[in-house]
């Protein structure tokens, strides 16, 4: 566990504040318990911070959506409706938990729990700041997506266990979407690994520190391939976390609630929470992979502690999520899968090639930087244009697989 | 690691292998037979890892790489097997493996 080295005196005080606080807690305990207590503290901190963030996010989303749609949004509970999320929580807790008689009770309970567990587990490896990471392992990125891929299972459990054909069909649809978008999601961040030649997120973030010309930070999003990868990653992340415009799994206005039809009360709240956690974790991942993690955008702003920078980037990405939700209409299921398989996957594969070229042409020297850039751009833009042409050329005729022809 | 841990791990893997084998031999559902085979592959992987940990050859991690390849093979095996299963199901509405016996001599 790499909370150490703590006492880096060149770091400003604010930078070291969280670790010092933890020291204040732990240094009373005997030596052998330190590791355990450290982990416990980080777990508690993560849970509380992101639980609170979840509460705030729900409120913020409702407010933002409301203002986008020219209505005030929740403003009754507490000051400006600040207490709304807690009221919601209490409501959810006190509601009756309805379980269908024919349902598979164990799985029915297990589904939200496992989903939430998986999405919470993903928080462990994200570096929130300099020396601020709960679990600094060598294979952090792989861990993130391995654990994240377990969520599909719980979606299936939810759909199947509630023993309702609509839930099952919706679950299949949701799974189709998740699997389709997991490919571009995973392929899109592989370029970063190719360039950084490591899977450890702290290493990746530290590789993105430093500034060229003293002004332009070395974030991967500022390279051609990095930008494309970032865009692909964000789109796939939208779909992975069932956000609009890809929120078909529980399209409130079309399906009842998709695979969550038979859920109510606190279990439903758990699903909801897991969705927000997933969104947050993916945004954090995007920040660490492409946006330079906790690095300051400019060398003159490094006096602001790193975790604050991380928070700023994370929150801006989340705001972007909400903005998109407020803006875009929902896709159709065939358009959705078509988009994934005919556009995102090929483009991300091509982006791999582009990155390979970028790496191979690293030693071209400054003289050839412009041609290198141009070739890279061509490698990306031409396929993009072609693919989008192909995609835009009329939508697929709807084929009714299950209806009688 | 000491001997008893090693033996424990080896027994574990062999037990896993035998469970897979018993499944393959006893169950009539093709899906379960495939999963049993997957289990056997897993036990083989376990042995690789365990022996890599005990062997002094630290320079290259052959065991790990071999396990990687085995996992890849297992994945493709599962994909092809289940696709075959579905094709079989489309032909005769059953996944019971003994129903697929038109070619009997």
């Amino acid at each position, binding site marked *: 566990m790499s909370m150490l080295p703590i006492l880096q005196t060149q770091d400003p005080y604010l930078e070291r504040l969280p670790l010092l606080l933890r020291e204040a807690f732990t240094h009373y305990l005997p030596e052998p318990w330190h590791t355990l207590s450290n982990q416990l503290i980080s777990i508690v901190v993560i849970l509380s911070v992101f639980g609170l963030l979840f509460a705030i996010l729900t409120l913020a989303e409702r407010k933002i959506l409301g203002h986008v749609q020219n209505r005030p949004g929740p403003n009754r509970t507490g000051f400006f409706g600040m207490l709304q999320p807690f009221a919601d929580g209490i409501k959810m807790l006190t509601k009756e938990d309805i379980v269908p008689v024919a349902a598979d009770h164990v799985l029915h309970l297990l589904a939200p729990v496992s989903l939430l567990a998986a999405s919470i587990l993903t928080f462990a490896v994200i570096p929130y700041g300099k020396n601020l990471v709960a679990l600094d392992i060598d294979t952090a990125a792989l861990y993130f997506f391995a654990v994240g891929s377990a969520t599909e299972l719980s979606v299936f459990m939810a759909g199947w266990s509630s023993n309702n054909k609509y839930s099952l069909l919706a679950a299949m649809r949701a799974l189709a979407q998740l699997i389709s978008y997991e490919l571009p999601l995973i392929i899109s961040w592989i370029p970063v690994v190719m360039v950084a030649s490591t899977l450890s997120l702290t290493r990746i973030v530290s590789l993105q520190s430093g500034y060229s010309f003293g002004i332009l930070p070395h974030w991967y999003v500022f390279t051609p391939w990095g930008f494309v990868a970032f865009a692909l990653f964000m789109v796939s992340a939208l779909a992975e976390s069932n956000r609009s415009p890809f929120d078909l799994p529980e399209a409130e206005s079309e399906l009842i609630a998709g695979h969550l039809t038979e859920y109510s009360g606190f279990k439903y709240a758990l699903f909801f929470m897991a969705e927000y956690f997933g969104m947050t974790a993916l945004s954090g991942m995007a920040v660490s992979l492409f946006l330079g993690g906790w690095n300051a955008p400019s060398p003159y702003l490094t006096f602001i502690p790193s975790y604050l920078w991380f928070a700023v980037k994370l929150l801006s990405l989340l705001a972007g999520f909400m903005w998109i939700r407020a803006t875009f209409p929902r896709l159709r299921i065939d358009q959705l899968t078509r988009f994934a398989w005919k556009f995102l996957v090929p483009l991300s594969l091509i982006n791999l090639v582009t990155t390979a070229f970028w790496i191979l042409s690293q030693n071209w020297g400054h003289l050839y930087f412009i041609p290198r850039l141009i070739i890279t751009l061509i490698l990306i833009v031409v396929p993009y244009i072609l693919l989008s042409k192909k995609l835009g050329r009329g939508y697929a005729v709807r084929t009714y697989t299950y209806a009688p022809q | 690691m000491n001997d008893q841990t090693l033996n424990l791990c080896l027994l574990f893997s062999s037990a896993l292998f035998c469970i897979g084998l018993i499944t*393959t*031999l006893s169950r009539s559902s093709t899906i379960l037979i495939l999963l049993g085979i997957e289990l056997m592959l897993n036990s083989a992987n376990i042995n690789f890892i365990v022996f890599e940990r005990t062997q002094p050859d630290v320079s290259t991690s052959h065991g790990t790489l071999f396990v990687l390849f085995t996992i890849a093979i297992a994945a493709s095996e599962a994909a092809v097997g289940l696709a075959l299963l579905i094709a079989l199901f489309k032909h005769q509405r059953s996944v019971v*493996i*003994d129903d697929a016996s*038109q070619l*009997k*001599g």
Partner: protein
Amino acid sequence: MTLSATYLSLIPLLPLYAAALGVLLPKKNKHFVSSLTIIAMATSFIISLFALNQALKNTSIHSTYNFSWFNLGQESVRIGILLDPLTAFMAVMVTFISTLIFIFSTSYMKEDENMKQFFCFLSFFASAMLGIIISNSLLLLFISWELVGLASYLLIGFWFHKPEAAAAAKKAFLTTRIGDLGFLLGILWLYHTCGTLLFYDHGHGILEHHVLASIASQATIFGLPLVTAIGLLIFCGAAGKSGQFPLHVWLPDAMEGPTPVSALIHAATMVAAGVFLIARMYPLMQADQFIIATPFHTLTIIAFIGAITALLGALIAGSQYDIKRVLAYSTISQLGYMMMALGLGSWLAAIFHLLTHAFFKALLFLGAGSVIHASHHEQDMRKLGGLSKSMPITFATFSIGMLALCGFPFLFSGFWSKEAIIHAAYEWPVSILPLIISLIAVALTAFYMTRLMGEVFFGTSRADHHHHTHENKAQMTVPLSLLALCAIAVGFIGTPSWPWLQSALNGTPVEAEGLFKGGIVMLGSILLVAGGIGLGWVLYIRNLRTNAHEEDPLETMIPGTFKLLGSRLKIDEFYTATLGKLNTALAILSNGLDRYVWDLSIQGLAKLGQLSGSINYAMDEEALNQGFNVTSEKIRQSGVQYSKAQSGETHGYLRVFAITVVILTLLIITLWS
């Protein structure tokens, strides 16, 4: 600049690659293929110009690039590439003429449906020829030699739907094979003696001094020097390729191929190969000059055969009606000249004549091709005529070529080269015969070329169907004009007063003499040319042929001789009568042997076998079969039993499998502990 081996090897390889690519491409993009081959050819022309430049830097050295091809035991067979003035001049000539001929063909073969194939073959042919030229090893040379033969077979028989074409292709192939057999024997003998086939190998090549000396000392069983024997064997190959007297029969028939092919074969490449071979092997050929105790020398034989061929070709050429055949026989006679010059010991003159002849003969053939193309594939001179008005460019260029071939004094290249040869004949100590023959041949050449001109270009058109012929397109006329230019210009690089070419080829500068060193001989030959042309004029131009069926003036004068000549001295018939008969007799003999001797014995054996077989059969039926029946019945039943195991139950198989695994594990454990 200096060319490395790779650049030199590009000269033959580029056309080869072009041909290979063309073969792979589909039939429809024939224009692409043609332009591709042309570009490749032009490129290798440029490369060979560079090569020439490099070779002329120091003409006395032979720069070689040898490498080991493969190893037999501890013997390593080495081949290589050679660059010296001879190679360079030949390469330039071949590539230049081939390029022009390719360009010509694009228009000539336009409406042929196999045009793409045609260009592939042409390119392949040229590349093989270039391979002959640049190879530094007799082995490599022989390989390219055979490839040339193959390509010529493909090209002569290109219009294989015509039975004559197919027959001609076969004839050319087989006739040259006869020569190549001798060639191969010579090569093997040489390799057996010297242990290498490289020409120049830093003092160890077969053309270098002390190797030659070592061979020259040996003698064969017939008291004939070894060198002479090998030289004659190799000359067989040369004779076959460049149509010397006994083996010249394929050459006129080869006219069945498309005209560009004839031009390529008879002007630049195939027939030149033989002369080139002798010139290349010249040190070997003249190695026996200093041996007194020998019935004859190689070069003497070559000289006489060349002389005979020259006379023969010239005689027959005067009596043919097919325009291309006339040119073919003139080619034979000119090749005879070259061979004679080689035999007379002045290979410089031979190569000089080879180069000049290449240009003007290519010009003549392409001119003939243009005539034929314009007059809808009419080749009979009696049916042509009066083309000088309708085809001015062709007429002009053709007449330039004709004058060059006749050796019209002072202006045309043919004159100088021929003069050199005649001069060599004049100075030859051994015999006066070559001089006489060459002088006669000069006159005859002038005569029949004038006849050709008169028949084809003057007078009025005598075609059965009255179509108006018109001048061809630029793809045809431009090469003609270029070649005409060369036919004039090339002569001046080898005049006696300025023997630049000879010096370059020889390596040591040849001293320049007066322009008129020929003196009386030159005067005589000029007079003979004038006489030939004059006679031709009187017979064929002053009183022009009016209709296609009136008989030839010569025929009226000397009918017997003319008929004899017209039937090509009955040489083909002679071969048919002798060799063909012999062949047939052998065939019949072997057939009879097969049928009556071997077959009888075999049938006897078969009868024996049948007898024993019947005995066997009887025994089986009586004694054994009952037992067998019972056994096989049992076996069948057991099979039925076993087939029950084949239940189609997957679990059955799996179970067997697992149990086997268990047993094997048990075995292993028991064996190890």
